[in-house]
């Protein structure tokens, strides 16, 4: 096992970068120099301060400030936190739905299998970002405004979670079909092991490898989808700015020369996604050497 887990330099680097960004996001309230949501501490006179290496920079704001005098570094750290929380939660939700339906369809077969797979087929003909956009848009209209403002983070998580379950379901169903026919499962069934225990004790542990790979790749995609929704002004509310929200704010100031408001969050987002993608590539190659030749 240890032999197969050989580390490539890019995988180590990707792992390190992911670790740094995740801990920076999680520790944001403690390591950020300012609290970007404490409106009382914002000074409008400090608005549009360029980064510190610029002549007009201020060492109190290493990456400059936005239009309201918010410290960009702190805003990015807090934004990273929101992006990661939404990304992780929505992928977890997608995994729970997808694995549940996949095992059910694969183990029980019959009409449940047919129904789940038809639903998956239908959803596959629409790109996930559009489905998330739609769910979020409908919730925005259907829910009363103040209720929506309060729960919009959960709405986004639900929207992304519901748009990513298909890949889990299809993979887990396929693997379950294979595992179900194996002798050890038949043996367990013959000696009267309860089906629930067969599923949790025997089948699920054996399908976890591919699930882990899908999770890594979907995490990168979920972070992108959340950033996209927020960029379009639909995702998380401005009081809980994610990286996408920050980029949207910065987009308005590109032409007046305040490039740093959009560019630093964009770089952070791209670095995070790239690192997670590289990690996913490495995991896939490591866990499934057969796929190594046909990476896509």
């Amino acid at each position, binding site marked *: 096992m240890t032999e197969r887990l050989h580390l490539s330099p890019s995988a180590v680097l990707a792992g390190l970068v992911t670790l740094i960004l995740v801990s920076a996001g999680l520790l944001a309230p403690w390591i950020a120099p300012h609290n970007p949501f404490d409106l009382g501490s914002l000074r409008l006179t400090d608005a549009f301060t360029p980064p510190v290496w610029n002549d007009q920079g201020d060492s109190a704001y290493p990456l400059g400030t936005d239009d309201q005098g918010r410290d960009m570094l702190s805003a990015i750290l807090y934004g990273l936190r929101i992006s990661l929380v939404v990304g992780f939660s929505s992928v977890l939700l997608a995994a729970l739905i997808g694995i549940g339906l996949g095992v059910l369809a694969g183990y029980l077969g019959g009409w449940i299998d047919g129904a789940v797979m038809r639903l998956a087929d239908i959803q596959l*003909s629409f790109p996930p970002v559009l489905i998330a956009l739609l769910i979020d848009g409908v919730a925005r209209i259907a829910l009363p405004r103040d209720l929506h403002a309060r729960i919009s983070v959960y709405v986004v998580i639900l929207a992304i979670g519901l748009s990513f379950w298909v*890949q889990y379901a299809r993979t887990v169903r396929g693997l379950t079909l294979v595992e179900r026919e194996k002798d050890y499962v038949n043996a367990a069934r013959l000696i009267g092991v309860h089906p629930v225990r067969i599923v949790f004790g025997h089948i699920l542990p054996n399908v976890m490898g591919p699930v882990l790979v899908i999770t890594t*790749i979907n995490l990168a995609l979920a972070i992108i989808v959340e950033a996209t929704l927020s960029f379009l002004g639909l995702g998380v509310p401005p009081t809980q700015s994610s990286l996408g929200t920050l980029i949207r704010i910065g987009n308005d100031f590109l032409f007046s020369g305040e490039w740093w408001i959009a560019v630093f969050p964009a770089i952070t987002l791209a670095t995070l996604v790239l690192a997670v993608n590289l990690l996913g590539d490495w995991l896939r190659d490591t866990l499934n050497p057969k796929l190594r030749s046909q990476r896509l």
Partner: protein
Amino acid sequence: MLVFILRRLAQSVLVMLAVAFIAFALFNYVGDPVSGMVGQDTSLEDRQKLRHDLGLDDPFPVQYARFVGNAVQGKFGLSYQQAIPVDRLILDKMPATLELSLTAALLTMLVGVPMGVYTALHQDGPLARLFMTVSLIGISLPPFVVGILLILVFSVNLGWLPSFGRGEVIQIGWWSTGLLTASGLKSLVLPAITLGLFQMTLIMRLVRSEMLEVLRTDYIRFARARGLPNRTVHFGHALKNTLVSVITIAGLQLGALIAFAVITETVFQWPGMGLMFIQAVTFADIPVMAAYLLVGAFFFLAINLCVDILYQIIDPRLRINRGTANGYGR
């Protein structure tokens, strides 16, 4: 073959009906569209009259039947926000989106396929490694970030290309085209690159892996043994076999391009259906949202159907086993 087409067609109609139901359900879950359209001081009678004019006071089944009946004829009612017929609005915006999506698709194929072939033939060459690295970055950059960076470099700093709108357009019948004017073409460059970049990296990686797969087969070994020149083997034999799956994916990606256009159009304020949809969501303009949903679903299903049929025609070996052909996430 005919049975297959009919079955797929029936399936598509069912999906369309389901989408139509969702679109219709939108109408019944919203608060009061009338109060969004009129001022505070509008009298109750005027409100009632407007409600009646919009057909909002009829019972549920009547509204649903009318909705499906009208949708089939392309009638989606009045836009709450702009008070003009939605079908006119959509026909007005459709050329912009289609021109953008098709240009991006063309760009994807013209650049992605050669890059894929090159990286497959020169696996360890420095240029091939560069392409692979660039493609990894292309997959990791969200489209709107690509758009913003392009605007920053080519519009703000260099001032070469416009960053919003379509430039001058020429009307040909109801179709408005930006492809015949210099400013229209210049406006198209950045949005098309933004929209196409992600798909381009996808096509490149697909062509590369398929080429590597085909190059390993006996068929290629025999072609070489017959003494055919490399060029014939690579392009006449290997690439031709690769194109089966490339055409499939490229077709499906065209649907994805129309969907991603929502994001690109917002970044570049491109006056297409995507921008219209986002504005409709922001203003709770249900008829426009519902119409976009139906038109979008129609495009996706039509493209999927064509690809499935094409697939059967091109490659009879492969019966309907498409798997995750368009399963890529975004």
